[in-house]
């Protein structure tokens, strides 16, 4: 296991206490051969530092960008990513996976 969820959620609490803006992104739906199951999460702080994973590296960059918006606005967001077959081939993932990721501010 890469990052156990307990470390990720502990980091979310620690960052929050240190005064950082923090967001939590959680996989809530998967279709096809998505790389990480529902419940997988990523925690992001206002400096763009993140821990955990929602896709095994594929869409984390986009999630972090959206998470910074959520930290600023306080409004939760639902993101959807489809992994097109061609793209999937290029990044070496099994093809056809789709995930929905819920991003919310902590605190």
């Amino acid at each position, binding site marked *: 296991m890469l990052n156990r969820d307990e470390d990720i959620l502990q980091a979310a609490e620690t960052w929050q206490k240190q005064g950082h803006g923090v967001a939590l992104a959680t996989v*809530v739906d998967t279709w096809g051969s998505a790389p990480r199951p529902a419940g997988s999460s990523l925690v992001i702080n206002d400096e763009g530092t993140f821990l955990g994973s929602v896709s095994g590296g594929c869409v984390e960059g986009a999630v972090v960008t959206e998470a910074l918006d959520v930290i600023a606005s306080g409004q939760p967001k*639902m993101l959807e990513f489809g992994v097109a077959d061609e793209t999937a081939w290029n990044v070496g993932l099994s093809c056809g996976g789709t995930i929905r990721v819920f991003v919310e501010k902590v605190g």
Partner: protein
Amino acid sequence: MKLEILKELNAERAARRPVIVVTDTSNGEQRLVKANEIAADPLRAELAKQLRMGKSGNVEVGAKKLFLNVYAPTAKLVIIGAVHISQALAPLARSLDYDVTVVDPRTAFASPERFPDVPLVAEWPDVALPPLNVDAYTAFVAVTHDPKIDDPALLHAFDRNCFYIGALGSRKTHAKRADRLRAQGAKDSDIARIHAPIGLDIGAVSPAEIAVAIMAEITAQLRLAPKEKEEAA
């Protein structure tokens, strides 16, 4: 996620108690349900099912779509006896994501050469077991065949509400063990919790096959609903 919910979630997880976070993904509304609160919850059927499977997922309640995020502790397996079966059982259990510990006071058995990468405690059960925090998310298996080691270990397991207790030995051996445990104060209800002969009856012969039978029985105990368990037994 509100900070209070996050703090409570982290505290429950540190204590190895299962929790479920229920989120209305349309507006971010959220609540935390502890395992002991499920029975009184309006979503009890859905919550109990997701928790048993150890799986997060969505449910639709009226017009609302709710995401149930399940945080179940990592299951532990405590193996009493660093014997041949344990050499097959420990790596199999690890591949099923259990945190495995092997206990055997006999240092000739409990050697790192025989158990590479497995935490070993070469102490008697009375010393070895209290620090292991055996709990409701622990499966407990006694396979030394030596009453001096197995019996005190089983008495410890009875007090800890383990979700599975198994002990090696034929029906005859188990009947004798039951008498000994009763003489040491065990209740009939405790003894009834021991799975013996250990493992699902799949005709296992070799140590590796016995390990498969044991992990199959432990999996059934962890995942099946009470009624399904009766049917499988």
